[in-house]
């Protein structure tokens, strides 16, 4: 009983988790032997960022989105176009992109969040696919299937390119290492914000409406308002991660908005463990690492990936981290 209370209500309990995350992120470079490893770690961090935001919507509020790649691509393309066509500096562009994507999410969220269950899945799926089709077809703006080149990130006129090498205070680091710092820092910030949100009145309202939307309404929770708010927040998470990825990779294609990408994101959340912020980070790491281990099997990659996905969901329907945590608690008890 005491542990449950500490988990749910003691805001101090965030510190150990955050320190743990910090240590893992700080030590991870020790495992990186080359630029390829760094590249993988950067992608894991950026994907985990999206997943942490999506988890707020799916894991905590219980609202399924099968179209979140649209917001990710929205951030990525907005950053690319604003820096290229309007000569905006990357940081203001990223901010403007996030505001724009947030506003879009607010506009579309108002009507569709009234829908329940499979109809909501259907509507978000539809929005995602429409976004992908528009990006593919409007090639005069978006470059179509060929994609778009993106300028490297720069802060106050200092270019932070993956290909550069930098020296600060006598410490020399490569562009990839610098980008790992950016991505890991971004992820840490994302987690910190999410944990605070979960502990806020918004977080409590979301958990209430996950339990039962009608019961929450009866208890005086304005469920429509809170659902919309968390939808916008999760969209902004995706947008910022998308902008960062665009500047990091220097190139974006409509794949960012594809149905497959949306599915990848929701899979990460469910795989790692819904309503477990650290779980979805693990989910992101696992989902991005599986293909690396399967490259030796080439032809078998798809089959094995599908089989692993099914097996994990059948035997651990609550996701990896919650299932394992439960097992430990049972043993301890």
């Amino acid at each position, binding site marked *: 009983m005491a542990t449950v209370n500490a988990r749910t209500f003691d805001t101090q309990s965030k510190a150990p988790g955050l320190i743990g995350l910090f240590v893992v992120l700080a030590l991870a470079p020790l495992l990186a032997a080359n630029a390829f490893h760094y590249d993988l770690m950067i992608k894991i961090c950026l994907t985990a960022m999206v997943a942490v935001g999506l988890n707020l919507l799916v894991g905590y509020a219980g609202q399924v989105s099968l179209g979140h790649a649209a917001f990710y691509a929205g951030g990525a393309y907005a950053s690319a176009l604003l820096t290229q066509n309007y000569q905006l500096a990357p940081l203001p562009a990223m901010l403007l992109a996030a505001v724009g994507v947030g506003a879009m999410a607010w506009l579309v969220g108002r009507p569709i969040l009234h829908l329940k269950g499979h109809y909501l899945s259907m509507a978000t799926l539809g929005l995602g696919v429409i976004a992908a089709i528009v990006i593919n077809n409007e090639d005069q703006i978006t470059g179509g299937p060929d994609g778009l080149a993106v300028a490297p990130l720069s802060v106050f006129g200092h270019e932070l390119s993956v290909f550069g090498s930098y020296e600060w205070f006598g410490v020399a680091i490569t562009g990839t290492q610098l980008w790992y710092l950016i991505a890991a820092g971004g992820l840490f910030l994302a987690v910190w914000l999410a944990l605070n949100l979960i502990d806020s009145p918004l977080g409590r309202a979301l958990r209430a409406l996950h339990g039962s939307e009608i019961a929450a309404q009866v208890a005086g929770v304005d469920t429509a308002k809170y659902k919309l708010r968390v939808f916008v927040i999760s969209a902004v998470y995706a947008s910022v991660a998308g902008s960062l990825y665009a500047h990091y990779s220097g190139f974006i294609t409509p794949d960012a908005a594809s149905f497959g990408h949306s599915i990848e994101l929701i899979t990460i959340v469910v795989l790692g463990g819904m309503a477990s912020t650290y779980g979805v980070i693990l989910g992101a790491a696992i989902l991005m690492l599986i293909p690396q281990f399967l490259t030796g099997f080439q032809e078998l990659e798809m089959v094995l990936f599908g089989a692993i*996905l099914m097996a994990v969901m*059948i035997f651990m329907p609550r996701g990896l981290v919650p299932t394992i945590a439960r097992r430990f608690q049972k043993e301890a008890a």
Partner: protein
Amino acid sequence: MFSEFFQFSFSGITLGAIYALVALGFTLIYNASHVINFAQGEFLMIGGMGTVVLMDAGAPIYLAIPGAIVMAGIAGVLLHKLAIAPAKNADVVTLIIITIGASIFLRGLAQIFWGKDYHVLPAFSDTESLSVGGAVLLTQSLWILGIAALLVTALGLFFTRTALGKALLATSMNKDAASLVGIKTGAILTLAFGIAALLGAVAGVIVAPITFTAYDIGIMLGLKGFIAAAIGGLGSSTGAILGGLLLGLAEAYTAGYISSDYKDAVPFVLILAILFFLPNGLLGSRAVERV
């Protein structure tokens, strides 16, 4: 002017019949188990590709088609037995991910054993097309409409005239009550997956002479079938058929009169518009949540 309209209508109804069959499969599984089966499109792939492969192996078309359909049926039964049934009390999203995993798995298998090439089946009749009102009517379209109508009638008779069909209906309506009166609901659910797979496979075979077939055709066709089912209101068979036809016509008219680039966006725009006004689809029942 009118010949153009006829032309678009022919292709719309043909496509619509295919979507209707996919949507019926969705509806069947949804009613029986409340699972949205994202692997439904793969049954079309197995139907089309299976026929191609069996014909390449030397089987005549009248053996290759039933062979492929049986293959899909087995895949459907296995999907329920091995992936859905063991995950009994899983969350809705978890079940969605399981069926997505299954669809990736099936697609992967097809890619390994059947290759990545696009194939086209020969049309079922020697005369390829007729001229009706100045428009070209493919004889294959007539096959598609005829077979679809036959299947829908057979399915209707199955549900109203046979004990097995009634048992399936009873299980869909109330699983606990059905098992109380002695219906083996587990086996019935497996049956629902098997029938849905058969419907999908037939759709996949009869459309293959018009469109192409390949290991990855299941994704789009499956999604559109899902939309057709949702347009009609998930769980309504009549709705699924109406939804399928509506979708096919809307797609054909958009491709013909507006823009073929945005043809694939039509189903998604349509479903958003419909859900905006009718949150439970055209013929869906209002769900009441018990607290």
